[in-house]
């Protein structure tokens, strides 16, 4: 069966004052129906650009040079802005942002904001005007109850500041699900939360994936969260997918030198805190050949000669490294 979402050879560049930055250079991923895919990478690796490209909200000056983004059998990159708005955003792809406080307007009631989304994007069920609005309120209250927001009936009449951080994130999960999307993209939705609240939200997300029949694309930099939540994993380094496959095999036996080095930095696993020497290359002047070669402990002469081929590790993960070609 075809995956719900698949990205192939996506290349995105952004024009800056100092030249053209190659932010994404051949990123690929594949998300099967009903699964949770974790996209992991350090800051500046292109995680945010990737999800912006999928939703068609790339910043000014950015352009897709190459690649395809297939979602439910359609290439999203050929859609016009209007088509994306009417047929994709919110209605078929929901979004959970990183900071719930930034995503909510402080001067409008929560209900006004969430119903606005539904007014534009909820599927047409034949009802109009007041009748349609009433149905939307009904669905929202039901969703808020499911999200365990206290007093869901009155919650819509309250303002964002009247909710705690965890509750605000629940409101936005409800908003993401309001128009019955097939795919939900979450951008580090638990980084701003406390450990126990984060745990509650992760549990909730896992239940919702099964209950609402959605697939979840979960962007994070926290391997601990990936281990707890995700089914599949896609590791990104300097705008390229370096390793992708099922979570547990990769965590048990990471294949790409970058994945290995990154996991070796995790306090749960580190024998000594050595870190990874060097720093992430600038997208303005990426190194020739393998992007990780200048920092790699296993580097060979061929690594800087050209782009490493896609290979397969012993555990079945796709790995971009000459060792597995």
């Amino acid at each position, binding site marked *: 069966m075809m995956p719900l979402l698949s990205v192939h050879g996506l290349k995105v560049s952004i024009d800056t004052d100092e030249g053209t930055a190659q932010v994404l250079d051949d990123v690929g991923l594949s998300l099967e129906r009903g699964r949770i895919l974790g996209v992991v990478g350090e*800051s500046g690796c292109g995680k945010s650009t990737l999800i912006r490209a999928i939703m068609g909200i790339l910043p000014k000056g950015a352009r897709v040079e190459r690649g395809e983004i297939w979602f439910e059998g359609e290439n999203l990159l050929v859609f016009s802005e209007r088509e994306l708005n009417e047929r994709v955003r919110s209605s078929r792809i929901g979004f959970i942002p990183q900071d719930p406080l930034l995503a909510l307007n402080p001067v409008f009631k929560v209900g006004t904001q969430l119903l606005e989304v539904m007014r534009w994007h909820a599927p047409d069920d034949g009802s109009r005007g007041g009748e349609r609005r009433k149905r939307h309120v009904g669905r929202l209250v039901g969703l808020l109850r499911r999200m365990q927001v206290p007093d869901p009936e009155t919650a819509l009449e309250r303002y964002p500041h009247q909710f705690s951080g965890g509750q605000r994130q629940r409101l936005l999960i409800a908003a993401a699900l309001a128009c019955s999307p097939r795919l939900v993209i979450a951008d580090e939705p638990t980084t701003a939360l406390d*450990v126990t*609240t984060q745990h509650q939200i992760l*549990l909730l997300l896992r239940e919702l994936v099964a209950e609402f029949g959605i697939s979840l694309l979960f962007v994070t930099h926290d391997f601990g969260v990936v281990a*707890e939540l995700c089914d599949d994993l896609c590791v990104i380094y300097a705008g390229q997918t370096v390793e992708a496959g099922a979570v547990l095999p990769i965590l048990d036996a990471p294949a790409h030198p970058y994945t290995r080095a990154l996991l070796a930095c995790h306090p749960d696993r580190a024998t000594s805190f050595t870190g990874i020497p060097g720093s992430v290359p600038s997208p303005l002047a990426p190194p020739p050949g393998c992007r990780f070669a200048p920092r790699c402990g296993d580097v060979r002469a061929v690594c800087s000669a050209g782009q490493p081929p896609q290979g397969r590790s012993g555990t079945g993960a796709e790995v971009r490294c000459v060792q597995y070609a």
Partner: protein
Amino acid sequence: MSPQPILTLRDVSVQLGGSKGFLRKTVPPVQAVRQVSLELQEGEILSLVGESGCGKTTLGRTILGLQRESGGEILLDGRPVGGLSPEAARHARRGIQYVHQDAGAALDPWWSIGRTLEEGLKIHGVGDRAERRERVAAMLSAVGLEPAWGRRYPHEFSGGQLRRVALARILLLQPRIVVLDEPTSGLDMSVQATVLNLLLDLRERFSLTYLFISHDLSVVERLSDRVAIMYLGRIVESGPAKVLFAAPTHPYTRTLLAAAPRLAGRRATEHVAVRGDPPSPTLVSPGCAFVDRCPIGDAACKAEVPRLAPIAPQHEVACHRASVEQTASIRARRRA
């Protein structure tokens, strides 16, 4: 008998805010820290762990003297240094320094790093300019930066490098105790590792004692000698890191440990989430603060605040039920 602790806190409480209303509304103060007792041994790393609003940062600030305690005693090398105004307290506690959570925000963007670092030495009356320059350069290389980078400005540094600058700044003042407030939050994992490595290295080289404030349990487990868990202003459990992570006893500690995302493959669904949100410190209840979220709390817990009591050498827990269960299991073992 253990040697004299470098820093001792006895029943320290801190009230924040509050105003008596004459023209404005009367606001009751917040009890941010409640009767905290702690001992910091020379050379150790003690971690203070808790969720936002539990009072760990306030306690750190109180130890520094930036925040005046409302009750209790603070002893440095056995000498009382508490009850002072912030200015006098900072003077008496020069040996304690603080690394800010947001290293970048603590630096003046218009000053070169070298000038910022020199300023600290100037304030503390360190001799001539040449000597100050020399010490700044030496310290920059001690924290792994190029001495020539003293001419650069904060925006030219990455997050990890800014932590190094922040460390250089306080180490110039030759502290004995360093309060590290979330020193690795917001850093990428590979950078976090190098910063932790540096912290361990500096502790050796400058014989430092760390009070490590954090909510990242993976880091805490790896780094600390001892751990104190805070909940709503009180320490609910403290003990050696190995013991505490192997046998967490307070229900809150257990909850926290179960909730922390860890690499060792365990699925979130296998755990029951704790109920409710972390409480607000403005709430005052007569009993245990955790009782409303506690899986084993009972009526007695609502009536009386549990005291921190030893259940094993160096391992203390503040829970009515934990000690009951402990005694019950000891009795059961005796009978068996």
